[in-house]
């Protein structure tokens, strides 16, 4: 996996995206008596994208080979990256159940873990989350995802 040509894969993703959009654009009206319809622009754009993606794939094969190993982080860095992503996704999944403050504290705690001693970490997590809740929810009346108890 590491030695795979990332450029080719990226090009394939773009190609698939282009084809998907192209097919979808066919279901919209291309033109009417008055002029072009909603289908014209997307059709041409996705068509152009498909052509470009071919060029890009060819170039990735012939000229600029970039392997996955070069672009993805390794070892400790990749763990850090995964930690961030997991925390982000986890936040979204949990927050409607246990509310912003709880989830926020967990979120910050996970991200700060390993950087400070656990009690400082906890202090920062709780402090920042409550501060944010107060500023956004209390002061600025910005709606936040809360649980059934309102926080």
């Amino acid at each position, binding site marked *: 996996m590491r030695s795979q040509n990332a450029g080719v894969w990226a090009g394939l993703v*773009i190609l698939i995206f282009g084809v998907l959009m192209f097919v979808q654009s066919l279901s919209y009206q291309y033109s009417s008596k008055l002029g072009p319809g*909603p289908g014209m622009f997307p059709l041409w754009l996705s068509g152009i994208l498909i052509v470009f993606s071919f060029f*890009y794939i060819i170039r990735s094969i012939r000229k600029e080979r970039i392997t996955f190993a070069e*672009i993805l982080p390794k070892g400790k860095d990749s763990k*850090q990256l995964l930690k961030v992503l997991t925390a982000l996704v986890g936040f979204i999944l949990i927050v409607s159940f246990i509310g912003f403050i709880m989830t926020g504290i967990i979120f910050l705690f996970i*991200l*700060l873990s390993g950087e400070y001693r656990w009690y400082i970490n906890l202090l920062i997590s709780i402090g920042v989350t409550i501060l944010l809740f107060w500023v956004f929810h209390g002061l*600025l009346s910005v709606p936040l995802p809360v649980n059934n108890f309102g926080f």
Partner: protein
Amino acid sequence: MDSLLQLLQGFETALTWWNLLYCLLGVIVGMLVGVMPGLGPTAGTAILLPITFGMEPVSAIIMLSGIFYGAMYGGTITSVLINTPGEAASVITCIDGHQMAKQGRAGAALGIAAIGSFIGGTIAIIGLTFIGPPLAKFALSFGPPEFFALMTLGLMMLLGLMGKSLLRGLIAAVIGLILSLVGTDSVSGVARFSFGQMELMNGFDFVIVAMGLFGVSEILIGAENIAKSEKVPKIKGLFPKKDEWKTSMISITRGTAIGFFLGLIPGANAVIASLVSYSAEKKFSKDPSRFGKGAIEGVAGPETANNAYSGAALIPLLTLGLPSSPTVAVLLGAFIMHGLTPGPALFQNNSHFVWAVIASMLIGNVLLLIMNLPLAGVWAKIALIPYKLLFPLILIISMVGAYSVKNSLWDVGAMIIFGILGYFMKKMDFPLAPTVLTFVLGKQIESSLLRSLTISEDGFLIFFDRPISAILITVTLLIIVISLFSEIKKKRSILAHDVEI
């Protein structure tokens, strides 16, 4: 003079307590954003957009412009003190600025940078005052074909001047265009690309796309290598030596001219402005060997250029509705969000708003000068906040911002997905600027194209029938040809500074 009168009326609005406060808040936040390595003005402005939702349009734009400006000032501080550009355009300042700091002259470097930035920014805004309205009037003679031609030209200049690969830039631009088409088409009422999802019926919100592509992706990349911090040199004495004033002033003048001119061109960015200024200073200097070892002109010129650039970049935005760089595109998105469409109509219908914003920029510049000169040392300390503490904060604030757009966690998820997209785009060296620019302009591009074709009697030839659009399209095609040529000859890497992100 009409402009002057309107400017004075603008000051009336800008000098209310609330708007002054927002201006101050904006420039402070901007400086913080500029000072912190890892968070550029584009990402910072995008992340703070949601906060402005509840505000009056004038106040919101005043604050966001303040951030835009402040970031330019703030980036200088870290460049000089810890050799880390706080934002892309300050890269050049690192070269001589940090050397000056090492020689104990950090104060002089920061001082001349602040003064130069103030002069450059102020003159650019004054230029805006006088060039703006006539340009807007001229732009009123633009019909759909002219707008389409203009936008295509702007995009091609962006693609042609920036980035290492025209192909990648084009792909990025087309992706942005397609993304902008998701949602209900305003002309026909057809819901496009919604794939049955209710949340997609209105398309992606600009804030979500901007925050994800710029902010979140930046953090994902930063998560991989957390920066180390150096000791900050002390700051003594804020001003250059007496004999250096004259050369510095000349550099400042040159920098203003360069930055102003480049700001007017869509597609240039602040990095190019400071780069060109640095090269010019070196060329015009009596003793070029001093550059790289602490030549004060190497700080004065580029810093002035990048602030003059920021002021001038607002001219195409306000008069033609054409953003000349990603950060300005974010500002454009903000305008649209608050119900104001930049362009010639803006000067006509909402002139008091425009002048209030212009007036507040002048005020902002003054505020920044005051804050920079005495408080430089304080700002420098902020640069020392460890990134490991900073990025979780930025993330959670971003999520709050994304949620607040429509009370929807779906949006937060979408932002993260855009973040991952942005991450891969950056890794694969795809420029992000074209994507966000086309996303913002997408609907307008399509509607001007469709309207042109509808009124035209010979299809696409309408673009060549009308003189203005014919000129614009020809220039666009020229740029495409030139870019292809230079790509083949591989001379593009000199201009490859897609780093304002």
